[in-house]
Structures are given as structure tokens and as C-alpha cells.
């Protein structure tokens, strides 16, 4: 059975990620211990949270170094929400240096009349490049978002999907063995479950 490490860094609702992984027939292991996560076939970086606080936890616990090694080992990683932001070089959220696996930065939604921030609710995800995570997922499937910042990868090749909210922003990014979703697939009904299933069995 495929084992999926779910990194626990005390952010957000990771239980729902675990539930989805189990529901899809894989073994999920929630842990904050690099030695435990190291043994997993694939890794999910879940969660809500604030970039600075998250990076501080990762840097002080050694999880940053672990993530770098895991990424370089070529094994699949799925980032979710804040996990889709900290993989870039830096975040505008309290000027936070991040992991830098993907060139680019994270910015806040612009202030616009009538545009509520955080962007919260269901919004369509438009695929930019084919990626195994979207296999069988209909184009423009609505997914569940809760965020105030979004990723801006420097290179077009790292864009996996886009979504419209005041601006057209990148809602999924990819590079090599890493794919990261700004929305919550574990809360996005059938299309989201399909993406997690794809990550478990086809990425």
C-alpha cells in the first residue's frame, strides 16, 4: 500500500487531508518527525496558516532541510494552500523568505472595490498545462478556496492552473516532482478527491 506522509506543522485542519487519503485507499501518516516522513512514498504539505509563522516552524524544527532533501530525492510532493505558497522563493506576507523550490513569489490580492479578501468559497480552476494531477478532472471544475495571497511563479512553465478573482491568478503550480494547489482538494468534493487520488496513484 502506498504510504502518504502528511506533514504536521500545527497548521490548520490536517485531519480532513488524512480522511481523504484513507477514504481513497492509501495509508496516511501524520507526523512532524523528518525520520518518520522520510520513509513515506509521497508527501503532502497541507494546511492553512500564515507564511511567516509556518516558515519559522519549518526552520526551527529542521523540516525545511528535510523538505529540500525530499524534493531533491525526486519523490512526489503535493502542497495545499499555504503549502502552495511556501515552496516559492518569498512571500509578501510579512516579507517572508520561503523554500524556493519554484522561482517566484507570493503576493496579496489587490485592493479593489467589492473584492472581498480573503478569497473564500468555490471558484473554477482552469488547467494551463496538462499534469497527471488533473487526469479525469473536468476543465473549470469548481474548487474550494480560502486565502488572501497567491503564488506568482516567475516562469510560465511552472503554471498548472489559473483562476479568476479580481485578477487572473495562478491557482496551481508544478515543477518536476512537486505539484501544489492553492485551493483545498480535500474540501472540493468529487473533483478534489480525484486530484488527491491522482496524486496517490499517478504522480
Amino acid at each position, binding site marked *: 500500500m502506498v504510504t502518504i506522509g502528511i506533514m504536521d506543522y500545527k497548521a*490548520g*485542519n490536517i*485531519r*480532513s487531508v488524512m*480522511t*481523504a487519503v484513507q*477514504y481513497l485507499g492509501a495509508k496516511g501518516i501524520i507526523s512532524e518527525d523528518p525520520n518518520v516522513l522520510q520513509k513515506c512514498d509521497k508527501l503532502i504539505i497541507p494546511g*492553512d*496558516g*500564515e507564511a511567516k509563522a509556518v516558515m519559522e516552524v519549518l526552520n526551527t524544527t529542521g523540516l525545511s532541510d528535510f523538505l529540500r532533501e525530499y524534493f531533491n530525492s525526486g519523490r512526489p510532493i503535493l502542497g495545499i494552500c499555504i503549502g502552495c505558497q511556501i515552496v516559492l522563493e518569498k512571500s509578501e506576507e510579512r516579507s517572508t523568505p520561503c523554500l524556493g523550490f519554484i522561482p517566484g513569489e507570493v503576493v496579496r490580492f489587490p485592493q479593489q472595490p467589492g473584492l*472581498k*479578501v*480573503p*478569497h*473564500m*468559497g*468555490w*471558484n*473554477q480552476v482552469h488547467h494551463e498545462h496538462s499534469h497527471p494531477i488533473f487526469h*479525469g*478532472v*473536468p476543465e473549470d*471544475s*469548481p474548487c*474550494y478556496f*480560502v486565502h488572501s495571497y497567491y503564488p506568482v511563479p516567475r516562469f510560465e512553465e511552472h503554471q498548472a492552473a489559473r483562476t*479568476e*478573482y479580481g485578477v487572473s491568478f495562478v491557482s496551481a503550480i508544478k515543477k518536476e516532482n512537486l505539484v501544489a494547489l492553492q485551493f*483545498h482538494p*480535500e*474540501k*472540493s*468534493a*468529487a*473533483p*478534489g*478527491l*480525484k486530484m488527491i487520488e491522482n496524486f496517490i496513484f499517478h504522480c
Partner: protein
Amino acid sequence: MLLKRIIVCLDVRNGMTTKGIRFKGNIDIGDPVVMARQYYEEGVDELVFYDITASAEGRRLFLDVVERVAEQIFIPFCVGGGIGSIQDMRDTLLAGAEKVSINSQAVKNPRIIQEGASRFGSQCIVLGMDALRDPAMPSGYRVVINGGRTPTERDALEWALEAEKLGAGEIVINSIDADGTKEGYELPLTRMLSEAVQIPVVASGGAGKPEHLADVLIEGKADAALIASMVHYGEYTIPQIKEYLSTRGIPVRVVPPLRS
């Protein structure tokens, strides 16, 4: 484009879904876990569970319901009723809820909004507010608590703005005047709050037919509409309601079938 949400509300008492009219008299109408799964499969966008039991035993049954719901539905859901401390919030979120809703307890102790938001994030903290028409109040609406039974000195608009400042991530505005009437949402109240705050506003109380949802999402400028009895008794289904809203030009979530 951000889609308008349809939220189904389930009042839970002693582990069973129950429905009352104007907070008087309740009848059990089903197993909340079974109902939640059904609404999920029909395409509801979010669910809210309110614990309306007062006993410790009822509370345990309720958290058990929350845990079993979390294992079966893969959309966000919010839990309210009886949440008065950070520990209550933590228990509820750990049981699998995305959001917690605080109502009377927030009026009695507004700091709980701030504490909850800084601990768990604003996106988790929903302010539930019951409001009653009252020309004596600056906005025309008075905040009432304890299920609508106890009037407070707070003005609905001022309280919404204060809660937003304290860190609430969303407001569910329930009109006591409209609740249970099935004659439509309280549009002026909903619109006033929607225009005043930057956080999403969910309209509650008064829905009887799909036209009411269209009215509150368009004229009331709500981000989401909460319904209960309209669907609990099989009068309408979620797909019927969404189809109607689509014909009115309201963007709603329709899940296309997955490709193999």
C-alpha cells in the same frame, strides 16, 4: 468567478436533526450524518450543524456526529451552538469542522472572536448573529441572543463591524422576524451588512422557495444563502434550487461528471 454558495443548516439535538418554528417546539427529522451525506451528493456547497442540546451527554453525541460527518463529506462545514471557549473551538475543529460559529457567547465576551482568530485564523471564525427589527436602534435592527429570546443593547450593524474588526472571517445574519415564516429573507438587513463589511455575509431565516434565494443573493448582496426546511422535507432539492438560480444568472457550483 467566485460562485454563490448554498448552505444547508441542520439543527442537532441528542444526535438527531430537528426543526423548530420560531424557536418554539421541535420535531426530529432524521439522522444528521445520513442527511449530510445526501446533501453532499446532491451538490450542496457547505453545511452548518448547530448543537441545540444543553446537556453534557448531548454535547458528546454532537461531537460524535461531527466526527462521523467529517469522515464522509468532502466539502467545508461549520459547527455552532454551545461554543464559548477556545477549548470548545479546538475540540470542534479537531473533530473535523472547518469553521466554528459563535453567537450569544461572542456578544457576552467579544474577546473570544479575537482569541479564536489569532489562534486558528479568521477563516475559522464565523459570527452568528440573530437580529430583530427595532426602529429604536440606529440601523433599525437589534441584536438578540439565546436563540432570539433575549434582547441586547447592541445594534446589528455596529456589532457586525466590531466583529469584523475583532477578526471574524464571516457573518451569518439570521433574521428573527423572517425565521420560520418561509416568506423570504430580510433583504434590507442582509444588504446593509453585506455593503458594510468586507467579509462574506451569509443570509439566514425566511427561505421558502428558490426565488427567495435569488432575491437575497442579488438584491440582498449576500455571498451565500442558508436554507433548512425547504430541503429537509423534500419540497425542493439542491439541484432544483441551483438550476433555478442559474436561470436567474446567478453563478453557482454545478459539478460536471468526472471523466475516466
